[in-house]
């Protein structure tokens, strides 16, 4: 499947300066709200790669490689000057999954395709006045993600609801720099997957707490954005009839670099995200721990995002 995208922007509006006033915030701002009864539509198309490995330095128990085209369509609706509702639809296309198992296991190498609607995301966003200190913009986002259709053997179809609460802040620096960040709390719901060998694999709920810090440099209508995230998780456990993977803690590191162009009505941004999740494997007390045992996810995502206000 090939995608050809032609985007032509003709803007007659003036570029804006950094400001904290309601609707005049740039579309790239994390505090941006569409005006009352206005809409902002965002489409995103990207290539996603994910590699999950469970290995030691001499032996790889299993390796799952996912790759697909992701499309996200989001609509934001302004309820008031400081509040908005958002609906996002995530789907995957042309997905390919490779499963590679250790020779000692009865499972053999598998390659399969997948695609479908992944999840629907509903968010409420509120921008609020100063409580802690002057000069800082703040907003709060409550987000619920729920899967509706499972892409075969990739996503859960039962109990996939995730809940996120996010506190955002930002302030403006000289020379058109904007420093921003967020604190995230996440509740990741249970996942149930049907494996190709017929087994059902269940993962328990777990929680996530993370911080994100970033910087935007604006050159008139162009901007460069970069941010890094670090988070800690509680346990992430997988259970199936033939094996259990149990962890008691984990962490992730994520980085993003993007280049964008925006006017008061339109935004286009290309960005790349890379992320690594590592979980601490728990072994029974009577086993000698293997210090090289490694259970981790490596993912990268390159995407083009377009947003417009109407």
């Amino acid at each position, binding site marked *: 499947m090939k995608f050809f995208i032609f985007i032509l922007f003709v803007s007659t509006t003036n570029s804006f300066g950094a400001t904290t006033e309601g609707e005049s915030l740039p579309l790239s701002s994390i505090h941006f709200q569409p005006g009352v009864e206005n809409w902002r539509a965002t489409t995103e198309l990207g290539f996603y790669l994910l590699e999950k490995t469970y290995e030691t330095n001499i032996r790889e128990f299993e390796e799952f490689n996912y790759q697909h085209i992701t499309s996200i369509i989001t609509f934001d609706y302004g309820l008031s000057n400081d509040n908005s509702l958002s609906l996002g639809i995530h789907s995957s296309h042309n997905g390919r999954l490779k499963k590679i198992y250790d020779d000692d296991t009865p499972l053999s190498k598998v390659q399969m395709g997948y695609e479908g609607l992944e999840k629907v995301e509903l968010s409420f966003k509120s921008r609020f006045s100063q409580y802690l200190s002057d000069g800082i913009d703040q907003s709060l986002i409550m987000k619920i993600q729920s899967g509706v259709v499972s892409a075969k053997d990739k996503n859960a179809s039962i109990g996939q609801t995730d809940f996120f609460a996010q506190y955002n802040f930002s302030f403006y620096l000289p020379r058109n720099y904007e420093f921003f960040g967020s604190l995230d*709390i996440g509740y990741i719901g249970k996942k149930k997957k049907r494996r190709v060998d017929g087994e059902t694999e269940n993962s328990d709920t777990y*929680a996530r707490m993370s911080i994100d810090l970033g910087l935007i440099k604006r050159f008139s209508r162009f901007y460069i954005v970069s941010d890094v995230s670090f988070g800690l998780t509680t346990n992430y*456990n997988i259970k199936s009839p033939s094996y259990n993977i149990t962890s008691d803690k984990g962490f992730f590191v994520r980085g993003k670099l993007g280049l964008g162009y925006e006017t008061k009505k339109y935004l286009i941004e290309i960005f790349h995200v890379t992320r690594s999740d590592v979980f601490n494997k728990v072994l029974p007390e009577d086993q000698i721990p293997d210090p090289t045992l490694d259970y981790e996810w490596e993912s990268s995502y390159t995407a083009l995002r377009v947003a417009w206000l109407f």
Partner: protein
Amino acid sequence: MVILTKLMMIFLVCLSLTLKANESEQNQAEVPQVKKRKGEIFISDLASPFQTNARFIVYGGVLATSLAYFNQKNQTYRKRESLKDAQPLGNTGFIGDIIGYGVLNIGYIAWATWYGHHYEDSQMKKNAELMARATLYATGTTMVFKSVIKEKRPGYPDDENSFPSGHSSASFSFASVIAARHGWGYGGAAYALAGFIAVSRVNDDFHYLHDILAGITIGASFGWGVHYNMQKGNNSWFTLMPTPNRGAGIAMGWSF
């Protein structure tokens, strides 16, 4: 516990010196002080995380701590360190362990007190008092929780002082005072350092995630709460503090 108890005593000495230094400054309070009865002042100070805008920190912190706690299904006591790959700070966690014992707080109190005296800077004397009060409240509350809850540490099950994290509460009370009094430039750096200390506690298997989230909530809420209380002009402090052999006591002081 013994080390922390000794540190508490040092805090009290520093605090007494700070309050004494402020005697001559009472008429120059930021806002005219409101005369309150002693009981009212105690309750006001202790409840500052709930009665001031710091309550938003409490709300978010309680939510985060609860989520982490109720999703922590593996209360494992490994009697060993976690995997090296699962330690984001590698072998540097010991730095957080050392400076998280209130070193930053004590250092700031000493420096601000000296600076205030040497340069006759009443604001810095106030800052030293705020740091001392916030630290005492935060660490005192933390130690009381530790004594009551007695949760085992994930990597060291013989030690039952896991919940909440004292390092996190002390370092975040420090960072909150810095942010409140010196702006977000210094405050951001202080919060980064406090974050490093908190993460080092999980990194080195002294705490679960919910332990450090609770510690962060206690420290930040008292840092900001006492700051707001001082802006209102309260002239006393009151805190719970541990004593040897798992006891608990009350420490209090007035400036008059």
